[in-house]
């Protein structure tokens, strides 16, 4: 097998890149794929926390690059999925400790016996971002339905096109259908209209995402969470399956069921 290298990026910080990486990697592993995720945010590492693997870190990616350990030694196995690994970032170094060719070399070593390598890009468009996209076969851009996040996503799409990385696919994260209905939030159509790229998934705003991140258990492992369902759908689309988009207006839970029965929206 030859892995597909997927980089998740956004331009703006705080839109949910790391959450998306943890969830997509977990969902892919749950589908029986062998997945390695790489935290590209050297100096501000977070992916290990969200995946609940913080206390297992011995070696990190900079140790691999500088030859202090073998690649296999820096790969931390997930607690629940034996085919899911994390290569953590170094917390005590900065982005200059890694170069684009280091990333290409690491991904090349990972490709032969992995299905997916998922790279978590840092915010911004500088060195760390360039490291993260250097080896990418495919790029996913995460944005929120906010003008500033969309503007930054547009910039990132422009850079990716200029660097001939191909047109990325879009994950629209934290959409609140109620706010959109009341015209208080950009709709998916507004965002797509501006960015003009293909949508790979819409993730609704959902408290369980934060709860899952804080517990180190990504929300995809919660079968009842709608955000979890959205991430599971994106993982299926990454694997080439044609999954219809969720109906976000649909309310979950008892109240939703009652509203449906009484025909109220």
């Amino acid at each position, binding site marked *: 097998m030859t892995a597909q290298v997927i980089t998740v990026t956004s331009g703006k910080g705080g839109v949910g890149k790391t959450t998306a990486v943890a969830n997509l990697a977990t969902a892919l592993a749950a589908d029986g794929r062998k997945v390695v995720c790489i935290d590209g945010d050297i100096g501000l590492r977070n992916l290990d926390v969200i995946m609940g693997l913080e206390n297992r870190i011995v070696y990190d990616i900079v140790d691999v690059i500088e030859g202090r350990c073998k690649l296999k030694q820096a790969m931390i196995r997930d607690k629940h999925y034996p085919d899911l690994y994390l290569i953590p970032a170094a917390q005590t170094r900065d982005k200059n400790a890694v170069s684009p060719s280091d990333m290409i070399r690491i991904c090349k070593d990972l490709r032969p016996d992995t299905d997916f390598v998922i790279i978590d890009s840092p915010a911004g468009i500088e060195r760390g971002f360039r490291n993260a996209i250097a080896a990418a076969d495919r790029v996913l851009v995460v944005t929120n339905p906010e003008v500033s996040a969309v503007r930054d996503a547009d910039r990132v799409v422009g850079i990716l096109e*200029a660097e001939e990385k191909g047109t990325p696919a879009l994950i629209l994260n934290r959409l609140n259908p109620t706010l959109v209905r009341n015209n208080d939030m950009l709709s998916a159509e507004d965002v797509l209209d501006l960015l003009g790229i293909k949508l790979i998934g819409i993730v609704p705003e959902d408290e369980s995402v934060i709860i899952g991140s804080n517990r180190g258990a990504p929300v995809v492992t919660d079968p009842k969470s709608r955000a979890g369902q959205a991430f599971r759908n994106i993982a299926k689309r990454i694997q080439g399956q044609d999954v219809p988009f969720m109906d976000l207006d649909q309310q979950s839970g008892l109240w939703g069921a009652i509203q449906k029965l009484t025909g109220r929206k």
Partner: protein
Amino acid sequence: MEQITSLVQIKGIRDGLLATFSDAAWEDQSIALLTQIDERPAFFQGARLAMDVGTQILKVNDLVDLRDRLSERNVSLWAVISESPTTEQTSQLLGMATRISKPRPEEQKQFADTISNDTALFINKTLRSGTRVEYPGHIVIMGDVNPGAEIVADGNVIIWGRVRGMIHAGAKGDRSAYICALDLSANQLRIADEVSAMLKPQKDPQPEIATINSEGRLQAELWHTG
């Protein structure tokens, strides 16, 4: 060795270092540049480098490759000066400057003069945030201009698409220049030295043309055929 390294001249300028390329093969010259840097890593550590590539026609891959290799040596490439419009466009797409504060005395002027007022730059794509396109003639864009993109032309600007970025026509002071677009909801328009920032997004967009009117104010009006 001496022969290889002398292909590229490096000198200090106010904004860092300037590497001047000749018209020899690009591949050889970029290797020569990297060799020079590798010979004196301490000197080049953290340097800001501008390149004058003369008439070389460079594609995205050429520049990205060299930029990444320079970046591995902790040298940041911030500007590419070129006489080729293709290379200039490539560097602008990659977000690099195409002019350094001190323009090249006579050559720069010669380049501008060779482009007559009737020449137009045709861009067949959407310009995204962070892209800046400058051209000493007219600019025609087949696509949108997104917020955060900047278009600067000495002549007119015509956009077959939606404008939400900044457009400057007649940048060298031509007050008869105009800007027209299918949907002109730009966040800022400029013609010569007039600036207009009061364009509101339209519900039902119609083609518009912006000119400086008889009172000397920048004004946009609906495009009437005939």
